[in-house]
């Protein structure tokens, strides 16, 4: 059951990812990205990361995607103009990419014998309770310092976007 779910949603993620790159219109690409984010959330859930799965749905598939679509609408972005490709890109791109993925997969397969591979549903401790405990005990300092990071980003947005001084 788990592996069927995995194959289905991994397949959806890859297809949506491909569609994201191939689509000409930014809105179609953005909607494909929702598909990628959503199916990734299901994969996280299969691995036992309940909290991460929910965060993925709310933050990425929800908030960030709304922002994306909003900006695309606001800028009124049209269809992407097709650039003229070089010959070797047209004919060499796909085989080279396939070769690259093949080599990567081979290396990964060789370095991780199958006994070490992930067992779906074996991982416990991805719930909100465990994550919260980690976050406020071991990782409390990074958690707090991240607020400085966000503050700097906010100041930056204000500095760069505020009204003319003169």
């Amino acid at each position, binding site marked *: 059951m788990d592996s069927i779910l995995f194959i289905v949603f991994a397949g959806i993620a890859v297809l949506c990812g491909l569609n994201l790159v191939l689509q000409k219109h930014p809105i179609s690409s953005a909607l494909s990205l929702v598909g990628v984010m959503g199916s990734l959330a299901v994969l996280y859930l299969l691995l036992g990361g309940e909290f991460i799965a929910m965060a993925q749905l709310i933050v990425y598939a929800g908030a960030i995607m709304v922002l994306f679509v909003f900006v695309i609408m606001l800028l009124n972005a049209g269809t992407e103009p097709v650039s003229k490709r070089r010959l070797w890109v047209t004919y060499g791109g796909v085989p080279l990419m396939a070769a690259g993925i093949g080599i990567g997969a081979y290396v990964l397969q060789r370095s991780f014998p199958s006994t070490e591979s992930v067992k779906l549903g074996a991982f416990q401790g991805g719930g909100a309770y465990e994550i919260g405990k980690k976050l406020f005990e071991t990782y409390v300092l990074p958690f707090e*310092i991240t607020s400085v990071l966000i503050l700097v*980003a906010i100041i930056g947005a204000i500095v760069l976007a505020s009204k003319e001084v003169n």
Partner: protein
Amino acid sequence: MDSSLFPTSAEYFRILPEMILTVVATLIMFLEAILKDWQKRVFAPIALAGLTAALVAAIAANGSQGTAFHDMLVIDGFATFFRVLVIAVGMLAVFASTEYLKREAHPGGEFYALVLFCVTGQCVMATANELIMIFIGLEISSIASYILAGYLRDDARNNEAALKYFLLGSFATAFLLFGVAWIYGYTGSTNLMEIRRQLETPGGPSVLITGTAAALMFVGFAFKISAAPFQVWAPDVYQGAPAPVSGFLSVGPKAAAFAILLRTYLTAFAPISRQWVPVLWICALATMIVGNFAAIQQSNIKRLLAYSSIAHAGYVLVAVTANSEIGSAAAMFYLAAYAFTNFGAFAVVTHVARKGERYTKVEDFAGLAQKQPAMAAMLTIFLLSLIGVPLTGGFFGKFYIFKAALDSHLVWLTVLGLLNSAVAAYYYLRILVVMYMKDPEPSEALPPAGPALQIAVYGSAIATLVLGIFPSFVLDFASKAALK
């Protein structure tokens, strides 16, 4: 109640500098909103007071060494050295920027707040004992730098610098984060000491995976230290950014980035040094060559100093390649000497560039020795230190670096590095020749430098000379604090 939930007072004491800096920066933001325009002169003194307090706290924290917050931070001599260095650079940046901002009619508390936050991030980097802390510190420092580079919003050059820096920087950070994720996925830890323990275990993690992760992380670090082949952003950013900011960016964030590079590679990745030392060897050589040979062709002084700063990153990489305690100490000393020297050079450029930075060509320095002999003399000290002439900090810096390289049997790298510094002498001397031998061209009068800028220039010059004449104090500290 679980006692581990509450940090001890000693742990708070160890991050006191970061806390002071954050509070003062926030205070400045608060005052910015409530103060009237004529009262805004207080920001620079407040920022300086905050930096001074942080400096004292950083030195005091050295007396209470150890880890803090579940091993997230480690306060040791190495961390203290870099904390003091980046805070000192922050102070110089505040001095040099006050007049610049007034001249460009662009006052504002945000600038000082961003400098303080940037220094906070660099302090976090200096003390980080965890890949997560390294990442967050690096991001705080980087995001603040992106904004500082584009601070004069209405200037097209500033916009270009900020946008390029931001896009390329985010791209490089992604590589770093990817490497961190690999390491975490494979060793189950982000703690540097724990990673080292795992890598030392016989039959432990495969070198292929950890080596790839280390290489991915190196891409991120190499970008921040502007090492070849990830140096392309540096000239555009340093040329486009406001001159005092260029000076700050070329030393502060760079020193902190070297701190995390040294700490990560000399502690966590020490067991796989056979894999990364050859990579560093090539990178160090390429960085020196690219920096020096490109600098020869520059006519814009900011661009020239940018390429020269790339070359200097190459020299420090030679020390990192040495992969030894002496190498680590040499890198620390060199970064200190380079920080004051390079910042001083940019401070003089700030002065000569005048309003709107219209005079940044090498020719614009013609006759500076007649018009303002004191400034010309200071720039001479900085350039001689960049060349590596005795009695300046740059000489001992280079001396210790190449000594460390020879001790680690890097004979060819040493020879090629020395040849590179000979090439570098050419373009530095060219500025000296223009300054002393050429008659001034009739152009806009150069008003005398204001007191704050003078403090920045003379302060940097004094530090450069002190490091050149009495290097032993700093070197002793660096040798004791060097990572093993």
